[in-house]
C-alpha cells in the first residue's frame, strides 16, 4: 500500500525529519546488532536484539521520508517493515524475509516458540544487511544530516 494511502487509513502520520532524533535511533540500532552477536545469551534474546535493529532501521526509513507510525494503531511493526521498499528502496525478496522474521518474533514473544539456529542466523544476516543498506541510503540521500 502506498505511504499516502497508509496515512489516509491512519497508519502513518506526517512528521518532518529530525536529524538528532534519527542519530539517536541509529545509535540504538547499532548497539542492538552488536548485542545480538553476544553468544553467551539465548538464541531467543539474540534474535530479539537483531530484530530490534531491523525494526529501528525500518522506523528510520519512515522518519527520513517525513513519516512516523501511529502508535495508537495496531501493527506498526508490520507497517514499518512492509513499506521498506518505498522508504529505503529495499528489494522485494529481502522485504519478504524481513516480514517473515517479524512473524517469527511474534510467535517467539507471545507464544514462547523457541528460535531455531537457522532463524537466528537469518535474522543476524538480515539485520547486518539492512543496517548497512540504511547507512548507505542516508549517506547518499541526505549527506547534509551528517548521520553517517
Amino acid at each position, binding site marked *: 500500500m502506498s505511504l499516502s494511502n497508509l496515512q489516509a487509513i491512519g497508519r502513518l502520520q506526517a512528521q518532518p525529519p529530525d536529524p538528532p532524533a534519527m542519530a539517536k535511533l541509529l545509535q540504538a540500532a547499532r548497539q542492538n546488532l552488536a548485542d545480538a552477536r553476544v553468544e553467551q545469551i539465548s538464541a531467543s534474546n539474540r534474535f530479539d536484539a537483531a530484530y530490534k535493529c531491523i525494526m529501528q532501521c525500518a522506523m528510520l526509513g519512515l522518519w527520513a521520508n517525513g513519516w512516523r507510525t501511529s502508535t495508537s494503531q495496531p501493527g506498526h511493526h508490520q507497517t514499518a517493515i512492509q513499506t521498506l521498499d518505498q522508504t529505503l528502496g529495499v528489494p522485494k525478496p529481502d522485504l519478504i*524475509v524481513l516480514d517473515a522474521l517479524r512473524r*517469527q518474533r511474534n510467535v517467539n514473544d507471545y507464544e514462547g516458540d523457541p528460535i531455531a539456529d*537457522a*532463524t537466528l542466523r537469518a535474522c543476524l544476516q*538480515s539485520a547486518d544487511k539492512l543496517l548497512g543498506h540504511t547507512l548507505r541510503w542516508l549517506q547518499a540521500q541526505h549527506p547534509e544530516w551528517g548521520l553517517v
Partner: protein
Amino acid sequence: MNLLFPAHRQQVLAALLLQPGHSLHLRELARLTGSHAGTLGRELSKLAQAGLLLRSDQGNQTRYSANVQHPLFPELFAMFRKTHGVVPALRTALEPLAAQIALAFVYGSLASGSATQHSDVDVLLVGSVDFVAVVQALYPLHELLGREVNPVVWAPQELADKARAGDAFVRDVLRKPKLWIKGSEHELEQLAGHWPPTGAAA
C-alpha cells in the same frame, strides 16, 4: 466447508478437483477418502450427473475425473485449494529444496482442525536448508492459499537435543496432529528419541 458440503462430497471433490487431468477408479477414491465404495459410487454418480465430474469407462473399470470445462470449475478449484490443498501446494513449493529437507510437516491450528480464517500455516522443516531460501520459496503461497505461511527450520541435531532436554515446544509439536509434507511420524520419533512424559522429574 463442512457447512457447505457433506464430508464425503468434500473429500471426493478435493481429491479430483485438486488434480485436474488425473482420473481415479472408484476403489482408489474409496481408499483415498476412507469411505465405503457403495456410498461413494452414489455420490460420484450424482456429481457426474451434475456435470462436475467426468466418467470414463475403461474395460470393466469406471474412472472419474474433474470436469475442467464446467463453468464452476475455476471457482470450486480455488475454494478447495484454500481448504484442502495446503499440503500439495507446500510440497510443490518446497520441491526445489527437497534434497536439503529430511522432514517437513504442518503443525498448529491447521493440522489440528481448529484453524480460523485468519490462521497462519505453521510449517516445521528438519534439515540443512537455508531459512531465507524457504521463506522465499513459500512466499507465493500467501496469495494462493489466502493464508500467511510461517516456516521454521531445525537442524536434525538441534531438534534431537531439544527433544532430549525436554523442551516444551518440541514436546508439544511431537504430541499434536501433523499434516505430513515429507517423511513420517515414525521418522520424527526416531530422530527425537525418547523423552520423559509430561510431569516426570527431569
